[in-house]
C-alpha cells in the first residue's frame, strides 16, 4: 500500500475559543484529485492554510508529500503549489515578471525557461508581456495557476478555483487540472462549492460541516451508491446545515 500524499491526523484549529477545524483525520492518495466540499465557514480554507503551512494547527498533525507541516514546513513548501481564491498578483508587473518573481522565490534553477514552459502549457504565451492589471478574471486565474506550478509541485492546493469564472473559464480550469494530474502526476486538493465540477473532475471527495468531517469516499463509490450528479447534490445537501434546514422546512 503506497504512502498517502496527504495525511491528516486529528488536525484541529480554533479561533477565539471557536473550533474551526475539529480533529480532522483522512488520507489523500498520491495522484488523486480531491474535492473538499462544505458550506461557507465550514473550515475548508483553514484546513488549506494549515496544510500549506500558513497556519500552525492548534493540535493534531498532518504530512504533505511525506513531510510534517509543523516540523518540516520548508520541505512541505518545496513540494506544494497554492492558488488562493481571487488571487490578483501584481498589477504593475507583466505576467512574465510576476511568474519570474515566483519562480525565483521557489528556487527554480532556470526561471526564464520554466516561465516560458508554463506559459506555453497554459496557452498564455500571448499574455507574457502584458501587465496583469488589465487582465480579466479568467486570465488572472490562469496566471494564478501558472505561479503555483512553476516548480512542478507534487501537490497543488486550489481554494475555490472556479469562484467568479464564467462557464468557459470553468471548463478551461477543469481541463488544466485534469492535464496537470494526468501529465505531471500532481495530486490536487481543491476546495469548491461546485458539485458538478466535483463529479467531472475529482477522484475522491470529502464533506466538511462546522469543522467536522462528515463524509469521505472515492467518487466511484459515491456514484455507485448514490447515482448521478443530482444524487451527489442530494448527498451534499443532506450532510450540510442548509440541507438539514430544508428538510425540516
Amino acid at each position, binding site marked *: 500500500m503506497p504512502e498517502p500524499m496527504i495525511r491528516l491526523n486529528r488536525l484541529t484549529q480554533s479561533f477565539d475559543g471557536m473550533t474551526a477545524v475539529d480533529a480532522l483525520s483522512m488520507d489523500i492518495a498520491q495522484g488523486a484529485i480531491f474535492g473538499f466540499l462544505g458550506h461557507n465557514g465550514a473550515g475548508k480554507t483553514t484546513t488549506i492554510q494549515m496544510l500549506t503551512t500558513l497556519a500552525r494547527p492548534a493540535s493534531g498533525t498532518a504530512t504533505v508529500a511525506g513531510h510534517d507541516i509543523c516540523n518540516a514546513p520548508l520541505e512541505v513548501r518545496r513540494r506544494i503549489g497554492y492558488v488562493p481564491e481571487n488571487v490578483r498578483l501584481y498589477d504593475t508587473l507583466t505576467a512574465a515578471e510576476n511568474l519570474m*518573481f515566483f519562480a525565483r522565490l521557489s528556487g527554480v534553477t532556470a526561471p526564464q525557461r520554466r516561465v516560458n514552459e508554463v506559459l506555453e502549457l497554459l496557452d498564455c504565451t500571448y499574455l507574457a508581456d502584458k501587465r496583469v492589471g488589465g487582465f480579466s478574471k479568467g486570465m488572472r486565474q490562469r496566471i494564478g495557476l501558472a505561479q503555483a506550478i512553476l516548480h512542478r509541485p507534487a501537490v497543488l492546493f486550489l481554494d475555490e478555483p472556479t469562484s467568479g469564472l464564467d462557464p468557459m473559464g470553468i471548463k478551461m480550469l477543469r481541463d488544466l487540472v485534469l492535464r496537470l494530474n494526468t501529465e505531471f502526476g500532481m495530486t490536487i486538493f481543491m476546495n469548491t462549492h461546485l458539485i458538478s465540477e466535483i463529479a467531472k473532475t475529482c477522484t475522491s471527495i470529502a464533506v466538511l460541516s462546522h469543522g467536522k468531517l462528515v463524509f469521505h469516499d472515492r467518487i466511484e463509490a459515491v456514484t455507485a451508491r448514490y447515482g448521478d450528479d443530482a444524487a451527489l447534490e442530494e448527498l451534499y445537501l443532506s450532510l450540510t446545515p442548509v440541507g438539514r434546514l430544508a428538510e425540516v422546512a
Partner: protein
Amino acid sequence: MSDAALNPVRLNPTPVRTIAAKDIRDALRDRFILIVTAFLGIAALVALVTGAIALRSDVATYEAAKASLLALGKSADAIKAPEFYPLRLLRGAIEQIEIIGAAIAILIGYRSAASERGRQTLALMLTRPMRQWQFVAGKALAGIGLLAGGLALVLGGLTLLLHLLSGIGLGMDDLLRIAVVWGVAVAYTACFFLVSFILSLHMKQPSHALLLAFAIWLTLVLIAPQIGDTLDPDNQVAGGVFKQLNIAKPDQIQIMKGFATFETVRGGIEQASVTKQFERFTFAVLGIKATYAGMPLGPILIEMLGNLIWIFLTALGLGALALALPLNPDRLAKA
C-alpha cells in the same frame, strides 16, 4: 512523479533580494511613489528658495545700512554683516523631511503591507520555501531603499542648486555633512515606514493601521516637539526670557534649579520624539543652530552622538520587532 520529487528544488538563498527587487520595480511603476517624492522635492525646493530670499533680504538690508553709514561719513564697523553659511539654507528642507518625509514613509509602509494582503500575494509568498523573516526583510529593504533613493534625489538636487546659487560653491566638508544628514534622514524616515508597515501587516484592518500610524506621526512629529518648545522658558519671549530680563548665566542656572522637575518632564516629552532628535542632530551638523555654525564636523558628531544613537536604535528596534512578530494567519485570508 513531480519535478520536485525527482530533482528537489534547492532552497533559494536570496528571497530577501528577490522580494526587494520586485517591490522596488512595482513601486517605481506606480505613479504614487513618484508623485509623493516629487511633492517632497517641490516642498524642499520652495523652502530653499524661501530661505535664499530671506538671506538676500538680510544682505540687502545690511548693504543699505552700510551705504547710509558711509554716506554720513561714519564707519560701517558698528553693524555686523549677515553670516552666510550655505548649508543653513537647508533648514526648510530638513523641516519638510521631518514632517512630509515621515508622512511619505508611513504611506510607503502601508502600501507595502496592505497591497500584499489585498491581493492575497502574501499567502503566495509565504507558501514558498523561505522563512517569514526573509519576507519581512525583503519588504523592509525595498521600502527603506525607496526612501533612501527619494531622499538622495531631493537632497542631491538641493545640494546641486545650492552649489550653483550660493556663488561660493560647496566644499568636501559641506558635502560630507549633507551625506551624514542623508544617512540619518534615511534612518529617521525608516522609523515611520516600519511603524506603518508593522501595523498594516498585523492589524485586522489595514485602513485602521494607517489611521493609527498617522496618529503616532502627529504625536511624534508635531505635538511632542511643540509641547517641549512651548514650555521652554527660552521660547516664551523673542530672544529668550532670560536675555530680555538681562539675567546673567549663573543666575539663570540658579533659577532653573527651582524648575528641575518641570524641566525633566519638558525635556522628556521633547526627547521622546524621534523627530526632535533628528532635528537637533541635523541642525547641529548643518550649522543651522548658531552654536554649531563654523564648528568642525567631528566634535559635532561626538556631541550629538546621543541623538544619533536614539534615532538608529529606534529604527533598529522597530526593524527587530518587524522580523520577530509572527504573522496571524487571519491576515492572510480573503480581504
